[in-house]
């Protein structure tokens, strides 16, 4: 049992099926997680603050204050759980993008699939997924998320001090992102 001051873990769930989204959302909420659910990999990346280069340019006109982007980045996600089979960006594609991102690579990613394909499972695990759940996902599976989340949280506190102190306290990874946005601003 955590201390009263601890904020609940925030899980981002990604699935293109409305039915599966309802299920995973309930499974996570009943396990006391704060949940955000999106229906595609690209929406997930948007939520995480990872835009495509061009989009960044469009969204960062000189008039927009840097603070808005910092706010976006400050939406803390402690774990991402994603369906594998999705149109457009698959769960695997999403995994790769997250692991290739400096600011997001430490977020644990779990993949779900209704198909038991060992080569698929191995590839995901080898490329950085913490775990692979076979659908239908059950409460017992969601219980397995805790250690991955705790590992992530302790890594955070190691690098970031106390993120929850507020906007003034930025860790180095945030600063790096800010510099990236600023660089794009000056390009305009």
């Amino acid at each position: 049992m955590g201390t009263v001051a601890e904020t609940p873990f925030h899980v981002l769930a990604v699935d293109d099926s409305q039915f599966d989204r309802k299920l995973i959302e309930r499974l996570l909420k009943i396990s006391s997680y704060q949940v955000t659910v999106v229906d595609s990999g690209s929406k997930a990346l948007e939520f995480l603050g990872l835009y495509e280069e061009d989009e960044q340019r469009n969204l960062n006109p000189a008039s927009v204050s840097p603070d808005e982007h910092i706010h976006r980045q400050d939406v803390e996600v402690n774990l991402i759980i994603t369906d594998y089979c999705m149109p457009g960006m698959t769960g695997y594609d999403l995994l790769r993008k997250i692991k290739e991102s400096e600011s997001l690579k430490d977020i644990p990613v779990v993949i779900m699939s209704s198909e038991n394909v060992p080569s698929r499972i191995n590839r995901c695990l080898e490329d950085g997924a913490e775990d692979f759940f076979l659908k239908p996902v059950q409460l017992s599976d969601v219980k397995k998320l805790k250690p991955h989340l705790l590992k992530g949280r302790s890594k955070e506190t190691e690098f970031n001090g106390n993120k929850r102190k507020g906007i003034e306290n930025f860790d180095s990874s945030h600063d790096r992102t800010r510099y990236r946005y600023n660089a794009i601003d000056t390009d305009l």
Partner: protein
Amino acid sequence: MDLVQLQRQFVDYTTSLFNEGFLDDQFNQLQQLQDESNPDFVVEVVSLFFEDSERHLNELTQSLEQQNIDFKRIDAHVHQLKGSSSSIGAQRVQKECINFRGYCEEKNIEGCRKCLQQVKHEYVLVKNKLETLFKLEQQIIAAGGSI
């Protein structure tokens, strides 16, 4: 019918659904996700299943009526249907979907058409069973009882 009789009827009916293979343990898993904060979860999820399934079945019917059959598209729909039926615990629908995918792989049109009929049949059966179950539940609650 008094409350005790209703409750007994509910238990007997549920048991028969499991024994006859209409529902499997996954349905129990769903019940575990229902509580006072989400008292209608099972009904909501099952309603979504009905909506989803009917959409897929319509698409499948249309796809199989085309001149040029798009097996990839058909497989995609059956895959989704198989997924949601397994998440609900609708075991017999799920099993027919597995057969269906086999015929898809073989590009066997007749096989696919037959399977679609089977899937529709099983779907209608389980839909009726679940609706009956929910009606019983409502009667129990109306009579002041709980499940």
